[in-house]
């Protein structure tokens, strides 16, 4: 079964490469969003299985979005990502509603698939 993915990230370049990488790895990227508000709206409308969510967004913090997504009807698997390292967020990652965290430089279909599997 192919995972449906929503990518929420304010960097268009990254979204583009991530989409191509994930689709090449068997995911179905159903949508992209450049900020938190449109990401929440897209998740509501598209009901993706997985949301790849950047922590630092121009409007709403990724942690806050993860909490709101957890309350949505579809309850997608939320995977946080960032160009920063896990240690840069201290204990907030552990406390977050997201399933997991993948640093952007370690993003791969295998890593995402593993986390999505855990989330299901």
């Amino acid at each position, binding site marked *: 079964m192919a995972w449906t993915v929503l990518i929420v990230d304010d960097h268009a370049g990254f979204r583009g490469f991530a989409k191509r990488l994930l689709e090449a790895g068997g995911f179905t990227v159903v949508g992209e969003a450049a900020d938190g508000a449109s990401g929440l709206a897209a998740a509501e409308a598209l009901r993706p299985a997985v949301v790849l969510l950047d922590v630092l967004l121009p409007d709403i913090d990724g942690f806050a979005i993860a909490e709101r997504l957890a309350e949505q009807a579809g309850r997608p698997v939320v995977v946080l990502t960032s160009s920063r*390292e896990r240690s840069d*967020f201290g204990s907030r990652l552990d406390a977050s509603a997201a399933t997991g965290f993948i640093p952007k430089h370690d993003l791969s279909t295998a890593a995402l698939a593993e986390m999505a599997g855990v989330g299901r």
Partner: protein
Amino acid sequence: MTRRMLVALSLAGTALVTVAALLVLFAHDFQPFGPAEKLAQVGTNAVWIFAGLVAWTRRPGNRVGALMVAVGVTDLLQQLYWDAALPFTVAQVLAFASTPVTAQLFMAFPSGRLTGRAERWYVASAYLLVLVLSPINALFWDWQRTECPTCPPNLLLVTSDPQFWEPWSIAGDVILVGLLGTGVALLVRRLRRATVATRRAFAPVLVTATLASLGLCVVLAMDAAGMKTEDSVALWIADVLYAAVPLAFLVGLLRMRWRRAVVADLVLELGSASGPTNARDAIARALRDPSLEVAYWLPEGERFVDSAGHPVAVEETPSRAVSMLEHDSERVAALLHDPSLRDDARLLDAVCAAATLALENVRLQADLRAQLAEVRASRARIVAAGDAERRRLERDLHDGAQQRLLGIRLALQLARSRVPGDALEGTESLLADADAEVVAALAELRSLARGIHPAILTEEGLAPALEALARRAPLPVALHACGERLPPAVEATSYFVAAEALANCVKHAHARNATINVARRNGRVVIDIVDDGCGGADPRGHGLNGLRDRVESQDGSLVVESSPGVGTLVRAEIPCA
């Protein structure tokens, strides 16, 4: 006056008095005085001369001493009724020479200067009347006929016709009485307007002069009653009282030394005065003028204000005098005071000089404090601006180069997944190498960005940032920090102190363990970084100095204790309300 001059003058005075005493003793008995009375008069003159010399030495800049000597000398001269025509005539012409000098002394005491117009006119008139009218008087005064048949003749006599002499004689008496009356009136007026200091100086003079005058009145009354006064107790008492008058002048003058002490006290008091009100009170006390006001000059507004900042009209009026206080020809303030203080011009000048220095000092201190506060504020602003710039740089790196490299990394992964098995040999390993390079570049970039300004510090605060710092350190670091958020500047400074100190632990101290402690104590954040390394850190080293500047920009302090062999403690204390 030098000591040598004083000795010379004293010797001359002694010689003069001795010769005068001899001359007076053997002089013609023009006046019906016995030898004892004559000597008593010479003795009084001697007291005038020597008291004057003492006054002159103690107050070289004051004319009072010289005037006292002049009173003694002129009074001595007029007693030299030598038994020959020429000296006898000269003595008669000089008979009232000491009168204008005495008048000048009374009018100028204690400053030695004639301050009022009336006083100047009076003294000038006294000199004119006595020195001009006495020789003219002598032209008509035939004393051999009127008073003393045995005296030597008057060489200046033009006519002995009583028709001429009598009007002159009456005029002379009227003039003398007029001078005396005017003098007393002027003196009373002066004393009514005088400062307390001047009155203090005059007090002994007034007491002795009044007593001496009373003594003379008694003697004259006894004379009038036909009693014998020669060698009487009353005459002796009167003589002693007269001889005491010059001493009273000396005492009064020396009491004025107290005025200088007043200025010295004022300087001390102004030095420790902490506010404008204290300064005003100190100046008012020194000048003994409770009505005194201090008006401060505002160069920006070009006007005078009082200590509360309200505008003050600085104008001379009949009841109010103004003394400008200037320093380097720039206005500092103005004193509004009682015009009578001008009598004591030296005291006023000295007090003004002391007040100018003190008030200028107050102004400079206020300027300095304002400048210091401005420098402190600008230093804090520079550090804050630097922090903001660091945050912006970190953000730019994160949003720019880092994102592009991440894109490249994803593209390389994609490319590697698409390389077919029969691709050109080495393509896959080339892509793998490129990918590894990008991963390394990303790691370096993250480290660089973190060094510029750790994002976690901005987003999470000091404790999580230090936690991350401790976790990344190549040695075990124990961290004790509370999680509360602090002002950004305090967090940044604390973080950079810890980061620099920890880097030094690794680089220089070769420590095995380190501890970071953050605590809040008495409105300050205290951050300690302790290691068990080799110690001996240079507290003035470049890195620590930079930290010190940063800490001090927030009014904090940085202490480094680093004895060789016992490890290093770096402690920063930063005020944090």
